[in-house]
Every structure is written in structure tokens, then in C-alpha cells.
């Protein structure tokens, strides 16, 4: 097969914070680096991150990377790898300074130092007073970081393939990953990019759920590519849901609404959280509130024509409180829900927000997978960073301010490791024909023109099934039923057909390819969740309500081949300090 082919030292798939920070390291070291992005790079989902980046700079209150590490281990419900967490918390400090020097306009204190704000889950002195650890560029930190990194990459001559969709990784005759087959969206023509090292940095996969806060681009493309290349996904059952997304749409309604006195009601007008959490009521933890909402809906007390959501009531707070303390909520509710919260309640439902799991890597971003008998092997030349990866720093739940940190630290370190790898492995490998045929098969499969199930229908059925059976309400019965339903959908996938077979900007074809990716990733989530018989962090099971360290202090590994589950131990030994042993989490 003769395909147009380009050669680079490094190929980066995805142009969010992780991909661009890795690319910048590489381009600055004069390596030839290609970044493939399905949308224009500054339209990556990093742009939506408002919160900030955690780093123990101690500019506002006393702080240390060790306290940051403690908070992160505790926040992970002890499932995070403590060596990776120590590493991230130490590296946070130089990473933020590097970004500052690159031009990120962090908010400042009067003395000129970087301002740091307090966030939930941050403590001084190992669980003591509130810490102030989050560096932010006003309320648009993700935007500021993404634009700075993009501009620096342009300056460093990174080669961008904008609006190219990665189909699959390709391997040489020895099975070593040596690049990817990509599709130019504008022309519909494939292009082979051969590289000495390849980094997956494609972000999250929230679109697998019907209600999500993630942008439409977050379809788990890199995770699915890894699965198809035989790499398992790790800890995929841990998915952060936010209790109050706008029903049917997913946009976040901040928890601040309930902090200011807003509360949830069902179709009878009952303030139902009083039944589920008599003391904390609407301020109970996210998983408790999310599950209560789903229970109300399941038991027939949901609101609206289809009884599929509950209401968040704010009108009793008055217009001035809503406008002053909850800016944006009124506007957002009016636009996306058609209601003015000053006079009527907002329809809400839990919204899928963040994947803690992903492609397993070591702390240098190298993809690492089991090699039998408990040992691990690095997959030569293959890297992953950002939300699609799992360096295991978030474990079972992520702290606010640690997601931008994760993408920046591990993007940067992956970039640095690739530089060494390419110097030690300077020869370009060539994709073999079997590997190329397989990747091309992803494309040609959609050329069939007979009647079949439309992509949009399969997509809707799949996302609804994920929401109903692998979302916040996770009992054996619900999940087993869901798994069987997912299997039925997967069996019908070969019958799905495109109606538009044009080449130029065929977005329907891209959506079909994304659907395949989402279904692969959805199985990873549903299967991992079904098997973990305990409640830990974001994985909450009413039928196994307690954390079970004896049986389940271990990482899940889902492989696509036979929907197989394996497990590996949590790395409880940090690099230089004492371990934090598992304790009950109290906040």
C-alpha cells in the first residue's frame, strides 16, 4: 500500500495542555515534532479549565510539597501511586515557574508574587488548617496556559497538523509502535506519520455519558487507540460526576449555588436531600447528592415531561444574591435551560466531568503494562499524558487544581523523556503492511453503502445506556444489566452505516469513528465498575458501601481482548519520604 508519509522524531496526538507542553520541550531541543489535533489547537478542552494549578509555592500561606502530597494521597482514597504523587507535587513548583517564564499571566499579589487561592481538600501540616495552593490566571487559567503554550510552540517551530483525526497507532514488523495513521478532515485523505516516539495526549472521554460537562471533542480517542493496540486501561471505573449539570445538556451549575442556600426539590416540591443526608442536606458530598438525584428519578419522583431530572431552587435567595454571588449562573440557566433562576428552579441532573483512569504510565509518561507475574514493562516509544493517561496521581478521586497540574507536569516530563529516547533510538522504524491494513480498515469499514443503523441512533442508545448503567448509581443488578445491553449494542455496531459518503469535511464520518472510540472506552468503564466490589472515591456502590483495602487496594486493568480484567498493586512507597498508610477519610 502506498500512502503519503511524513517523518518526525516525535508525534504528539492531541493539542491540549499536555500535548503542547510536551511539544514545547521537544521543539526547544531542536527535535522535529508533529502535533496532530482534530480541532484547531486553541480549541482544545484545556481552554475550559477555570480553576487553576496547585503548587506549594507558599506565597500566601505556609506550604510544602509534602503537605500537597498528603492531601493528594488522601484525596485519591489511597489508590494513587505515592511515588508518582510525590514526584508530581515536587515538580509542580518548577512547572509553574516555567509557565510563568513562558508568559502565562498568573494573577499577582501586591508584592508581585503569584497569587494563590484556597480550594477544597487543601491543608497545611498534613490535614491541619486550610492551605492556599492554587495558582490561577483570573478565572481563565486553562485559556491562558493553552494560548501561551501554543504561541511558544509556533515560535519553536513545532509542526501542527490542524484538523487531522488520528485513526490508529501503527507498528513495525517487530511490533514496535512507530507512529500513526491519520485522516485529513478537509480532504478525507489518509496520511501516515512515522515517528521515533509517539505521545497520546487526547484528553478525556466524558462524551461516553449522555449528560457531561465535557466538550463534544472529548470522545476518548487516544484511550481507544491504546486499547486497540493491546494496551489495557487503568482504573476506568473512577469517573468524577458533578451533581448539578443542566438537565439534558450537561453544563455545570457550580456547587456554590447550594453553598449560598440553594436546594434540590423533586416533582412534589419536596426538599429530598433531607431524607438522604439529614444533617448536611444539600451540602452532602458529591457522590451522595448525585446518587440521591438519580434515586429520585428512578423512583418516579423526577420532574418534567419525562420525569428525568430534579430541580435546583434558588429563587428564595433573591435577585441581588444570585446576581452578585453567583455570576454566570443566571445567564447560563436562561440560555441553556430556558429558565431565570430568580423566578423559577433550574432543571438539573448529575453530569460526567472527569476521568481519573486512563492509559497506564510511569512517572515519565512512558506507557507501562503488565508483563506477567506482577512485573511491568514499558512499551518502547509509546507515551501518554494528560486526562487520557493514568500516571496514578488521582487514584479514586481528583482534587481541584490537580488536573491542570497533572497535564502540565506529565506533559513536560514526557517531552523530556522522549528527548532522551530519541537520542538513544535515532533510527526511524517503518510501519508494516499488516498494521497499516488494520488501521486503514477503520476507514474503509465506513464505505459500505447498504441500509443500516444510523450513527446518531447508535450514539444516543449507547450514551443513554452508559448514563443509566455505569453512571452514579452502581449496583450489581444495574451494572450487569447495563453490561449485557452494551454487548448487544456492540454486536450491532457492524450494522451501523453512514448516509454521507463524501470526502471533503465529512464530519459524519469523524463522528462515526468517534463512536467506535467511545464504545471501546465505555466498555472499559462499565466492566471495571462492575468488577470492583467496594466503594472508594468516586466509585460508589450502595451494595458495597465501604472501602475494602484488604481486597481492593489495587489498580484495575481492563483489556479489550475478551473484556478481560487484571489487577496490579498500588505503589504505596514514595520516592524519598515515608508512606501515608490508608486511613478513613474525614473532611
Amino acid at each position, binding site marked *: 500500500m502506498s500512502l503519503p508519509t511524513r517523518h518526525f522524531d516525535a508525534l504528539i496526538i492531541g493539542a491540549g495542555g499536555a500535548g503542547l507542553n510536551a511539544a514545547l520541550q521537544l521543539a526547544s531541543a531542536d527535535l522535529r515534532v508533529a502535533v496532530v489535533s482534530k480541532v484547531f489547537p486553541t480549541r482544545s478542552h484545556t*481552554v475550559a479549565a477555570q480553576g487553576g494549578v496547585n503548587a506549594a509555592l507558599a506565597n500566601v500561606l505556609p506550604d510544602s510539597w509534602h503537605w500537597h502530597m498528603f492531601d493528594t494521597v488522601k484525596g485519591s482514597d489511597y489508590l494513587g501511586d505515592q511515588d508518582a504523587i510525590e514526584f508530581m507535587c515536587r515538580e509542580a513548583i518548577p512547572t509553574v515557574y516555567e509557565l510563568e517564564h513562558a508568559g502565562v499571566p498568573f494573577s499577582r499579589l501586591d508584592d508581585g508574587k503569584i497569587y494563590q487561592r484556597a480550594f477544597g481538600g487543601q491543608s497545611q501540616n498534613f490535614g491541619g488548617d486550610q492551605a492556599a495552593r492554587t495558582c490561577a490566571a483570573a478565572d481563565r487559567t486553562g485559556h491562558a496556559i493553552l494560548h501561551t503554550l501554543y504561541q511558544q510552540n509556533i515560535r519553536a517551530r513545532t509542526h501542527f497538523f490542524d484538523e487531522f483525526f488520528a485513526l490508529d497507532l501503527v507498528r513495525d514488523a517487530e511490533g514496535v509502535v512507530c507512529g500513526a495513521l491519520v485522516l485529513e478532515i478537509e480532504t478525507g485523505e489518509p496520511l501516515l506519520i512515522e515517528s521515533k516516539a509517539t505521545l497520546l495526549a487526547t484528553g478525556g472521554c466524558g462524551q461516553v455519558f449522555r449528560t457531561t460537562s465535557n*466538550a463534544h471533542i472529548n470522545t476518548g480517542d487516544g484511550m481507544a487507540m491504546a486499547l486497540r493496540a493491546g494496551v489495557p486501561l487503568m482504573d476506568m471505573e473512577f469517573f468524577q460526576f458533578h451533581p448539578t449539570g443542566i438537565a439534558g445538556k450537561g453544563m455545570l451549575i457550580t456547587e456554590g449555588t447550594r453553598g449560598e442556600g440553594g436546594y434540590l426539590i423533586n416533582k412534589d416540591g419536596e426538599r429530598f436531600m433531607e431524607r438522604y443526608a439529614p444533617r448536611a442536606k444539600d451540602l452532602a458530598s458529591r457522590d451522595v447528592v448525585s446518587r440521591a438525584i438519580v434515586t429520585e428519578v428512578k423512583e418516579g419522583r423526577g420532574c418534567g415531561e419525562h420525569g428525568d431530572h430534579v430541580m435546583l431552587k434558588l429563587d428564595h435567595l433573591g435577585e441581588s444574591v444570585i446576581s452578585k454571588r453567583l455570576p454566570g449562573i443566571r*445567564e447560563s440557566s436562561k440560555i*441553556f435551560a*430556558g429558565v431565570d433562576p430568580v423566578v423559577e428552579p433550574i432543571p438539573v441532573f448529575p453530569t460526567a466531568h472527569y476521568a481519573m483512569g486512563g492509559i497506564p504510565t510511569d512517572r515519565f509518561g512512558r506507557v507501562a503494562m503488565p508483563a506477567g507475574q506482577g512485573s511491568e514493562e514499558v512499551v518502547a516509544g509509546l507515551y501518554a499524558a494528560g486526562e487520557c493517561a493514568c500516571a496514578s496521581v488521582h487514584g479514586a478521586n481528583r482534587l481541584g487544581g490537580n488536573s491542570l497540574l497533572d497535564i502540565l507536569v506529565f506533559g513536560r516530563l514526557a517531552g523530556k523523556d522522549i528527548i532522551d529516547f530519541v537520542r538513544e533510538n535515532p533510527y526511524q522504524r517503518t510501519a508494516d503492511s499488516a498494521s497499516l491494513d488494520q488501521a486503514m480498515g477503520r476507514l474503509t469499514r465506513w464505505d459500505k453503502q447498504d441500509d443500516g443503523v444510523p450513527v446518531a441512533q447508535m450514539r444516543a442508545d449507547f450514551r443513554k445506556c452508559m448514563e443509566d448503567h455505569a453512571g452514579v448509581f452502581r449496583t450489581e443488578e444495574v451494572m450487569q444489566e447495563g453490561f449485557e445491553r452494551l454487548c448487544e449494542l456492540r454486536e450491532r455496531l457492524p450494522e451501523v452505516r453512514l448516509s454521507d459518503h463524501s470526502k471533503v469535511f465529512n464530519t459524519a464520518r469523524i463522528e462515526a469513528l468517534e463512536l467506535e472510540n467511545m464504545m471501546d472506552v465505555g466498555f472499559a468503564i462499565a466492566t471495571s465498575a462492575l468488577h470492583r466490589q467496594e466503594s472508594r472515591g468516586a466509585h460508589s456502590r450502595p451494595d458495597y458501601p465501604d472501602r475494602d483495602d484488604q481486597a481492593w487496594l489495587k489498580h484495575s486493568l481492563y483489556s479489550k481482548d475478551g473484556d478481560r480484567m487484571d489487577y496490579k498493586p498500588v505503589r504505596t512507597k514514595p520516592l524519598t519520604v515515608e508512606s501515608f498508610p490508608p486511613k478513613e477519610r474525614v473532611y
Partner: protein
Amino acid sequence: MEQSSQDAASELRRLRWQCRRGMLELDHLLDRFLDLGYADLDEGRRETFLRLLGEQDQRLSDWFMSRAPASDEALQDLVDHILDVVRAPAPGG
């Protein structure tokens, strides 16, 4: 004739991809507007729509959420029009 309708279809698909953004809110507004309101725009406003799509996500978010006015009158006019077309109907209304 057939060629020009093919061109129009591929132009619409190209615009559809430009409506893929980094924020869900923008995806929703722009994608739905393409379905519900783009066909009714005159040539001048179609050019303004192209300019709008060329703006940064953060700016678009500020304009649509009324945190800041758009950078010129034509863009602001189009932002208001998109909101009118796409804004969710009141429940039961």
C-alpha cells in the same frame, strides 16, 4: 447547479467542524445555530459568522454569557441573534 449544491453542502460541513470548540457551552450554541438559523442569514451576516468562528473560545464565552461586549457592532448583533435563535424555550412554553 449540482456542483454548487455540493459546494454548499461541503461548506456547511466545514462550518460544522469549526463549531467544535473547547467548551461545551460553545459547542451547543454554535452547532445548534448552524442547524436552526444559519440558512436564514444573508451574505453579510454569513461573513460575520465566519469571523465569529475565528475568535478565541474564551472571548466567545465572554460575549455569549454577557460578561463582555463583542469587539464590534456586527459581531454583537450576531451574538444576540444566535442567542435568540438557540435559547432554550421555557419549560412548558
